[in-house]
């Protein structure tokens, strides 16, 4: 249970960075309000609460990746991580310690988006709870890719890659646009990435409409598992790389 103290520290580090709260919670909430307002004048399907709330929630989780990546990169650059490598913590303790604090934080983002969704017209039903649960595979993916980036990149690289990642997730996920307008070539790229699948999975759950949820679930979960193993591998390599 040594990782609990490490996890507590990571939770506090993120919580005490006001930018985390602003970007993580307030920005998605603002976007939902913005697009809902626009939808009153531009009645397109993607701006309706049942579409925009899952889309923006998934977009909001991409900030989790940034927070975690930057935290790990900072820990590397300040030698804090080196100090902990000398401690009895094992690689699994690091992975758990970095992952756990982000889970409640992600759920806060999801809950905030869904509550605001109710205010802009989502009908109150159990589907809202199911939608919250449907976010979990993508939250896990966001956490593990954050660990992966934090271990592999330095702070400057994460800032650059993170910006590309956030824009890519928004554009290629179809959070606030119909992917059909992107054309066949780009649409074929979106199919192999997890963003649009995560959004579509939650949209099906929230709307209750018919759709092949399993393909979306399998792809997002597959990405989460892939990046779990990549983060474990690269973290272990990082601990060993200091042995060279």
């Amino acid at each position, binding site marked *: 249970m040594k990782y609990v103290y*490490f996890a507590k*520290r990571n939770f506090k*580090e993120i919580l005490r960075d006001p930018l985390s709260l602003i970007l993580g919670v307030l920005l998605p909430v603002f976007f939902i309000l913005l697009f809902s307002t626009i939808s009153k004048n531009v009645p397109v399907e993607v701006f309706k609460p049942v579409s925009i709330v899952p889309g923006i929630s998934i977009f909001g989780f991409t900030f989790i990746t940034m927070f975690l990546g930057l935290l790990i990169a900072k820990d590397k650059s300040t*030698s*804090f991580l080196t100090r902990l490598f*000398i401690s009895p913590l094992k690689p699994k303790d690091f992975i758990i310690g970095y992952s756990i604090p982000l889970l409640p934080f992600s759920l806060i983002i999801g809950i905030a988006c869904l509550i605001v969704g109710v205010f802009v017209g989502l009908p109150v039903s159990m589907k809202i709870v199911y939608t919250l649960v449907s976010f979990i595979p993508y939250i896990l993916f966001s956490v593990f890719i954050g660990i992966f980036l934090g271990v592999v990149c330095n702070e400057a690289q994460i800032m650059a890659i993170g910006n590309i990642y956030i824009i890519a997730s928004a554009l290629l996920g179809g959070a606030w646009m119909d992917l059909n307008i992107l054309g066949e070539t780009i649409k074929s790229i979106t199919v192999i990435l997890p963003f649009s699948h995560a959004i579509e999975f939650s949209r099906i759950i929230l709307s209750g409409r018919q759709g092949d949820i399993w393909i979306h679930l399998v792809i997002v979960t597959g990405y989460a598992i892939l990046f779990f193993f990549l983060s474990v591998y690269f973290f272990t390599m990082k601990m060993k790389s*200091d042995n060279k």
Partner: protein
Amino acid sequence: MIETKHLTKKFGDFVAVDDLNLSIEQGELFSLLGLNGAGKTTTIKMLSCLILPSSGNAKIFNKDLIKDSQYIKQRINVSPQETAIARNLNVQENLEMMAGIYGIPKNENLRKVQEMIMLFNLSEVRKKKAKLLSGGMQRRLSIAMALITEPEILFLDEPTLGLDVIARRELWGNIKKLKGKTTIILTTHYLEEAEALSDRVAIIQRGRIKAIGTVAEILIQTNSKKLEDAFVLLNEKEKIR
């Protein structure tokens, strides 16, 4: 307590530590002195299980440095050259975290935090975020974080680097309080610091020990009056070669 045999570390073709043979007794304060790149920090990194030796070995607590690293890690601690602290946590939280990571039970954890806060005069800043502390205070916190786990061996890698004279003297006072109880391996560029604190010193050049013993013994060996003279003499000899 620490015994190294032909301990060597190479980074590619560069030999950072070359055939190091050392024996350090329990409770001893042993200083490693040398110019930049002499191999002091690499030695500490090897002895604290952070990097593996290229050849040779060491026994700590009579345990193998490589095979029994988990056993050794639980009983040692390090205050690194950089003040490696959690910047957004306050002083008390930093100490609690470090004690928790080493598996110290909660009730004992609180007692030890209080003990370290008193020992290092941190009570006035106990609720202050670490990033807002002065350089001297951050150093004190960094060493307190290493000591809270009650290590049998404490590695202090240039603990007074960048501190003003007053802060340095205060830290010397803290280190002196530990003498005899905790085995301390100290690296420093300040020779007067080594002179004031150490039971024995080793002067390292290019990864090799050039002189080892008490300060008095080294002065006799080099026919010098001050440790600084001995240090300069040994380094000049090396340059001439």
